[in-house]
C-alpha cells in the first residue's frame, strides 16, 4: 500500500474491508446465525458466537432511525428476535428453563436470558448425574420455592430405582412429610405405583386412587399432591 499518511491508509482500509451495506456479508452472517445451534458448545460459547454475529450484523446493516420512539421499538423487536433465536438453539436439556423464560409476562433482556440459562447450566453441572434424567428436567421446571422438596423427591426416586425396593427412610419421607409427586408421564406414574406396592395393599390402593382421580391436563405436567396419609 502506498499512502503518505496514516489517515489515508485507514480510510482505504475502511472502504475496502468494512463491507458497509454489503448485502452478501449480511446474508453470510444471517445464514450463520440461522444455522447456529448449541450442539456440543457450552452455553457461554454458544451465546458468544451469536452475540458476535449480532454485533457484526448491526454494523453492516447500518440502520439509522429517525425518531426515538421508532428506534426503541426496533431495539425491542431485535431483542425479542434474538432471545427467541438464542432459546431455540439451546439443547433440549434446557427445555424447562426455556418454558420458564417464555412464560414470563415481560421478556428479560438478552443478556439477562443468557445469565439465567448459564446459571441453569452451572446448576446442572454440579448435579451428580449431569441432569440427564427425565425426572430432573421436570424438577427444574418447578418453582424455586418447592425446589428443596422437589430435590428430595428426586433423590427418593433415584435411590428407589437403584435399589429396586423402597428402603424404610424413603417410606417415612413419602408419607410423613409433605409429599411431592411428579407425574411426568405414564411411566413415572406406574413407577410410583410400583414403589407403593412395596408397602401394604391399602396404601397402594389409596395412592393409585389419588393418581387416577387427579386431573392430568396433559403429559409432562407437574402435579403436586400433598398427601396426608399417616404412617401406622
Amino acid at each position, binding site marked *: 500500500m502506498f499512502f503518505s499518511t496514516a489517515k489515508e491508509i485507514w480510510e482505504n482500509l475502511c472502504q475496502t*474491508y468494512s463491507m458497509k451495506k454489503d448485502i452478501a456479508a449480511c446474508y453470510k452472517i444471517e445464514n450463520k446465525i440461522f444455522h447456529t445451534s448449541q450442539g456440543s458448545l457450552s452455553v457461554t460459547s454458544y451465546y458468544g458466537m451469536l452475540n458476535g454475529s449480532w454485533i457484526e450484523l448491526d454494523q453492516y446493516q447500518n440502520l439509522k432511525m429517525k425518531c426515538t420512539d421508532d428506534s426503541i421499538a426496533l431495539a425491542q423487536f431485535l431483542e425479542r428476535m434474538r432471545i427467541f433465536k438464542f432459546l431455540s438453539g439451546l439443547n433440549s436439556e434446557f427445555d424447562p428453563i426455556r418454558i420458564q423464560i417464555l412464560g414470563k409476562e415481560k421478556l428479560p433482556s438478552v443478556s439477562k436470558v443468557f445469565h439465567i440459562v448459564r446459571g441453569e447450566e452451572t446448576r446442572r453441572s454440579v448435579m451428580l448425574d449431569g441432569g440427564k434424567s427425565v425426572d430432573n428436567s421436570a424438577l427444574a421446571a418447578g418453582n424455586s420455592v418447592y425446589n428443596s422438596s422437589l430435590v428430595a423427591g428426586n433423590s427418593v426416586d433415584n435411590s428407589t430405582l437403584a435399589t429396586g425396593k423402597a428402603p424404610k427412610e424413603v417410606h417415612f419421607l413419602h408419607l410423613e412429610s409433605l409429599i411431592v409427586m411428579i407425574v411426568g408421564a405414564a411411566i413415572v406414574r406406574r413407577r410410583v405405583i410400583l414403589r407403593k406396592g412395596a408397602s401394604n395393599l391399602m396404601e397402594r390402593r389409596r395412592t393409585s386412587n389419588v393418581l387416577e382421580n387427579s386431573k392430568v391436563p396433559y403429559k409432562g405436567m407437574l402435579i403436586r399432591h400433598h398427601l396426608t396419609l399417616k404412617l401406622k
Partner: protein
Amino acid sequence: MSAKNTTPLNSIDLQVLQSNYRLDENNYLQWALLVRATLKGRKKLNHLDGNPPAKTDSKYEDWDDEDFFIMTWLWNSMTPAIS
C-alpha cells in the same frame, strides 16, 4: 519489531498486535475497534480521523514523524497479504 525501540520522538508506545488480532480478510470490524481503542488510549486518534496541521505550523514536523510512526504500526498490524 518492537515499537518501543523506534520511538525517539514521541512517548507513545504501540505494541505490535498479537498475530491472531492482525487484520486479515474477515476480521476488519474487530481489528478496527482494537486499533481505534489503542490509538484513542494514546491520544493519537486524530491521526486517523483528524486533519493534519498546516505545513507552515511549527508542530507539523513532529506530527508528520508521529504519523509515519503510526503508519508503520498499522502495517505491522496487518497480515502480509493485506499490507
